[in-house]
């Protein structure tokens, strides 16, 4: 493949219409990245795209669809082909599963399959379709995890298992793609006040939780590190400190 041409860096963000994904899109647009953003709901996604193009004079390609759908992933690949590079991929789109959350032992196999398709299979499949573009940019893949991956919290078994599997997929991909120059990290953003959290907790008052914006300094730090120094690691965005290996 030809060497990379100069120009704006490109970030792909899934689940970018709301919550953490929308916050990351706005910040990366501010940093001057051209964006490829996706979400199931097209209208709020296009609204974000227009705002970021206007505020930060970057190109934003908004693609509505479900990451579990192979045709949607093919569209993401075509957008990357147009952009001719992918410097950052944030696999942020996540499926909570049916609410109210049920005990793991009562989870239906089909609910399990849906959650796994979005939270585990799709992120890996998106890395696969973007692999040549990520390799060309020595890019960074960020898989958005959860403290449910480690917690053993009642009701969070299906979602938590999918995120625990995603953590393992992250460290495995990091090892397998190192030779391609692609770096992979997992990030647990910590408790946040998002639509997804509200669905999980029903009518509970989540006003004591920080908004996704509270984690912005972590992301600003993460995106500024040389990716290869971090590859294979898992970070907690709300931890007391974020370290690079010596």
């Amino acid at each position: 493949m030809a060497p990379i041409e100069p120009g704006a860096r490109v970030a792909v963000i899934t689940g970018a219409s709301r919550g953490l994904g929308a916050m990351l899109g706005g910040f990366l647009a501010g940093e001057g990245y051209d964006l490829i953003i996706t979400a199931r709901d097209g209208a709020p996604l296009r609204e974000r795209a227009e705002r970021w193009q206007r505020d930060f004079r970057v190109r934003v390609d908004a693609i509505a669809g479900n990451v579990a759908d192979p045709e949607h992933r093919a569209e993401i690949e075509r957008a990357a082909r147009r952009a001719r590079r992918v410097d950052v991929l944030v696999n942020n789109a996540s499926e909570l599963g049916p609410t109210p959350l049920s005990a793991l032992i009562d989870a239906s196999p089909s609910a399990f399959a849906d959650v796994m398709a979005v939270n585990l299979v799709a992120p890996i499949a998106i890395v696969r379709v973007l692999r040549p573009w990520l390799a060309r940019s020595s890019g960074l893949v960020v898989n958005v995890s959860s403290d449910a991956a480690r917690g053993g919290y009642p009701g969070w078994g299906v979602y938590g298992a999918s995120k625990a599997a995603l953590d393992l997929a992250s460290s495995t991909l990091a090892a397998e793609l190192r030779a391609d120059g692609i770096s992979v990290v997992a990030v647990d953003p910590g408790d946040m006040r998002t639509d997804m959290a509200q669905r999980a907790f029903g009518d509970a008052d989540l006003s004591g939780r920080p908004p996704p914006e509270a984690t912005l300094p972590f992301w600003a730090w993460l995106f500024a590190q040389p990716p290869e120094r971090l590859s294979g690691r898992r970070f907690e965005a709300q931890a007391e400190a974020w370290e690079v290996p010596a």
Partner: protein
Amino acid sequence: MIEGELAVPWSSRLEAVAPPEDRGLARDGVRLLVSRGDALEHHRFRDLPQLLRPSDLLVVNQSGTWPASLPARSERGPFLLNLSTRYAPEVWVAESRFGPAEPGPVPLGLGEQFEAAGLRAERIAPFPGVDRLAFYRFRGDVEAAMRRHGGPIRYGYLARPVPLAEYQTIFARVDGSAEMPSAGRPFTARILESLRARGIRWVPITLHAGVSSLERGDAPSDRQLTYPEPFEVPAETVQRIERTRRTGGRVIAVGTTVVRALESATGPGGLRAARGFTQAFLHPGRPMRTADGLVTGLHDRGSSHLSLLAALAPAASLERAYRAAVAEGYAWHEFGDSHLILPS
């Protein structure tokens, strides 16, 4: 965190409005309040070597101070952009102010372009929870522009602009602090010489301090905040600290920044070399595990520094010390007097 617990006549405290050199004092001529539990002594800073034991180890912050206050101009007029923390060469957290004595934030839309230190800049994202801070993106070499056009960050209580050299501590090796790690300022060559003569060693960490305006009572709602700052604890420093502990010596941190760096480098397995960003906030509910004593300044009520002190010393002892500091006319702020807190 401990506000309200310390009954100190805060409004009677003195503020240092200029370096001690303006009063004909050497840097090490500032006063040194020494607390050992409830026992208090009054010294000059130059007495420090005699107050320590040969087995003690000092840990110092080797961060140097940047001329981080930049002249800036938007369509609405001139303002100050005080750089706080570098995230990437072109992406910084900074505080917009109308002037040294006039806090901001200056009205700037997201994506609105303006000029700072001769560079094109834009505000790209609010900083969570603190209106005055934001992420900014610059086009060009920020450090070069800062060295050409910037000056030290100062606030309204200073009687005169103080040149950058007067902010650098004798330990400064790596520039990167928006504001001087001031606990190290009273150290002079002759103090280092007498420390050495007594067999007292010192080892470095780096913590690049951001703007302190949040601590200065301008904005009551975010006074408890600590925000992420770059830090590094080198392996040689870890080894030296471990050797000191093994041989029964005390570890004395020079500055709250040193405590925050050491605490951030402490994991389940103890202290280890570490590098990254830390937002550690120490308070009585999160006591410190790494320092036995502290050389520091005098801190304002409600500040995160004072909460950190309360993680080291009982509130009653601190109250006693601070009441004495007010009564005896000790001076607050970065050019003021010092406080040595030792175990009782």
